C-alpha cells in the first residue's frame, strides 16, 4: 500500500536521505530501525511532506511526493511525530477531536475509531478528558498523540519512537495498542531505536544507516545476523 522508491531529502546542503527504498503492505506492521541521526524521522517527514522529498512516495497507487502535508494526511497517511506535541490550552478531549479530519464526525460509525474506543483503551485519558492536556505525563502524552492521529482514521500510521523514555509497563501498553491498530486493518510503520517491541510485533524490519536502508528481512533474520546488529544497531 505504501511504496517508497529512491527517496532523497536535504536539510540545506546536507544530503540526509540518500535513496531510501522500502514498502509496507496492507495491514502489515513494519519497523524502521537504526541509530540516532541516521534519518528515520526525516524519512517520516519526507513521506508526510513536512520535508521536501525527491523520489517516489506511492500510496495506494498514487504518487504523493510534492503534495502538501494536509493533503497527504487527508489521503490516509497518519503520522505521530516523536516530539509528542500536545496542544496547550486545549483539553484531552479537544486534542482528540482535532485528530478528526475536516468533515469527519466522532462516533458516527463511519471510521474505525471513536473517542469512546480511546477512552476504553486508556482509562487515564478518560479521567483527564476535560483537563488541560499540557499536564499529562509523558506516557499519557504518547498515548494521546497516537490516539489523536487514529481519530482521523488513517489507513497507515507512521509512529516515531513511541517507547522512547517510557517505563517498561507503558512500553508494553504501547505494544498492545500497536497490535490493536493492526487488528483493525491499519498498516503501521514503526520507527524505533530499541529492538524490544519492534521485534515482537513486526512482520518485517528495515535497518537504516547513514540515509539508506542497509538491511531488510523478517525479525528472525535480524535475530540471526549479529554482524548487522553490531554494525548498525548496537551502541
Amino acid at each position, binding site marked *: 500500500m505504501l511504496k517508497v522508491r529512491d527517496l532523497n531529502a536535504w536539510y540545506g546542503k546536507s544530503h540526509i536521505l540518500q535513496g531510501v527504498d522500502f514498502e509496507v503492505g496492507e495491514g502489515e506492521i513494519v519497523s524502521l530501525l537504526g541509530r540516532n541521526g541516521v534519518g528515520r524521522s526525516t524519512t517520516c517527514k519526507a513521506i*508526510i511532506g*513536512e520535508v521536501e522529498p525527491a523520489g517516489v512516495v506511492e500510496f495506494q497507487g498514487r504518487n504523493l511526493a510534492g503534495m502538501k502535508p*494536509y493533503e497527504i494526511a*487527508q489521503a490516509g497517511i497518519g503520522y505521530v511525530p516523536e516530539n509528542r506535541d500536545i496542544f496547550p490550552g486545549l483539553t484531552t478531549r479537544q486534542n482528540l*477531536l482535532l*485528530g478528526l*479530519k475536516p468533515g469527519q464526525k466522532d462516533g458516527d460509525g463511519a471510521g474505525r475509531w471513536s473517542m469512546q474506543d480511546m477512552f476504553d483503551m486508556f482509562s487515564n485519558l478518560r479521567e483527564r478528558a476535560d483537563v488541560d492536556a499540557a499536564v499529562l505525563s509523558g506516557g499519557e502524552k504518547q498515548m494521546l498523540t497516537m490516539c489523536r492521529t487514529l481519530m482521523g482514521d488513517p489507513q497507515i500510521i507512521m509512529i516515531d519512537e513511541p517507547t522512547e523514555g517510557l517505563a517498561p509497563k507503558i512500553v508494553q501498553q504501547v505494544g498492545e495498542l500497536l497490535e490493536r491498530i493492526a487488528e483493525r486493518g491499519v498498516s503501521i510503520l514503526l520507527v524505533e531505536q530499541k529492538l524490544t517491541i519492534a521485534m515482537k510485533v513486526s512482520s518485517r524490519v528495515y535497518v537504516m544507516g547513514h540515509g539508506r536502508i542497509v538491511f531488510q528481512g523478517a525479525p528472525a533474520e535480524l535475530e540471526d545476523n549479529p554482524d548487522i546488529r553490531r554494525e548498525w544497531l548496537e551502541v
Partner: protein
Amino acid sequence: MSLFIVNILDGLVTGLLLFMLCSGLTLIFSMMGVLNFAHASFYMLGAYFGYQISTYVGFWPGLILAPIIVGVIGAAIERYGLRRVHQYGHVPELIFTFGLALLIEEVVQFFWGKSQMAFEAPAALKFAAFSIAGNAFPAYKVFMIFIAIGVFLVLLYILTKTRIGMIIQAALSYPETVQNLGHNVPLIFMGVFGVGTAMAAIAGVIAGPVLGTFPGMAVLLGSIVFVTIVIGGLGSLWGALLASLLIGWLQTFAAAYNLRMADLLTAIGLTEPADLAQSLLSDLWTLTLPQVGPILPYLLMIIVLALRPQGLFGKRET
C-alpha cells in the same frame, strides 16, 4: 462624580476601539511571529472605504461592505505577499509590513487627498442617548460600545467554542502538527489574517466619524496599538483586552482632569520660583496633565516592561 462616569464611558469607547485592532493584531502576531506594521493601515482603509460607500448608499451598507472588502484585501496580501516573504525570515517580513503601511498611506492620499473627509455619523444616531448631570452622551458612542462588544463576543465564541477556533488555537502553537492531522493550515492562517484586518476595518468605519478620517489616522492610532499589545503581552487576547481598556481610560482621564504640575510640586513642599519665565525648570512647573496625556501610554509601557518584560498576560520570553 457625573464627570467621572462620563469619562469612564468615554474611556470605554476608546478602549474597546483599541481592542478591535489589538485583538486582530495579537492573533496575527501569534501566527506569524512578527508584528504587522500595516495593521492600523487596514483600520484607515476601513474608514475611507466606509466613507466612500456612505456617499453613495449611506452609512449602514458601508459598515458591512467596507470590512468585507478590506478583509478580502488583507487575505490576498497574506496569500500572495506575506506568505512568500515568510520563507526568507522575520526581518524581511517586518520590512514588508512596514512598506505596506507606507504604500497604503500613499494610495489613500492619491485617491482622497491630504485633507479630512466629511465622514459623519448616520443621522439616525445623532441624538443624545442620555445625559448625566448635564453631560450629554451621544447615541453614536453607545452604538460604538455595542458594536465593539458584539465583535468581541463573536470572536470569543469562535475561538473557544467552535471547531475552527480549536484548530486556530492549536495551529498557533504547533502549525506543523495540525497540518499533519489533515487541516489546511495555510488556508486557516489566511482566514485569520483576513478576519483580523476586517475587524480593524470595522473599527475604522465606526471611528472615522468621531476621530476623523484623514491620512494620518493610521500612524496616530497605530503607535498606540503597538504599545497596547506590548503592555498586554504579545499574543494574549485577554492581555490585549485589559491593556486596551487601561489605555483608553488613562488617555481619557488624563485629558479630562486639568491637574497642574505646579500644584503637585507645591503639594510636596517645593515653592514656585518667583521669576518662573527665567527659571531653568519653567517647563516643569507649567506642565499640565492633558499635556503629558499622549505620552502616558508609553510611560505605562516602560513601567510594565521593567516589571514584567513579557507584558501583563504574555507567556513568551522576550
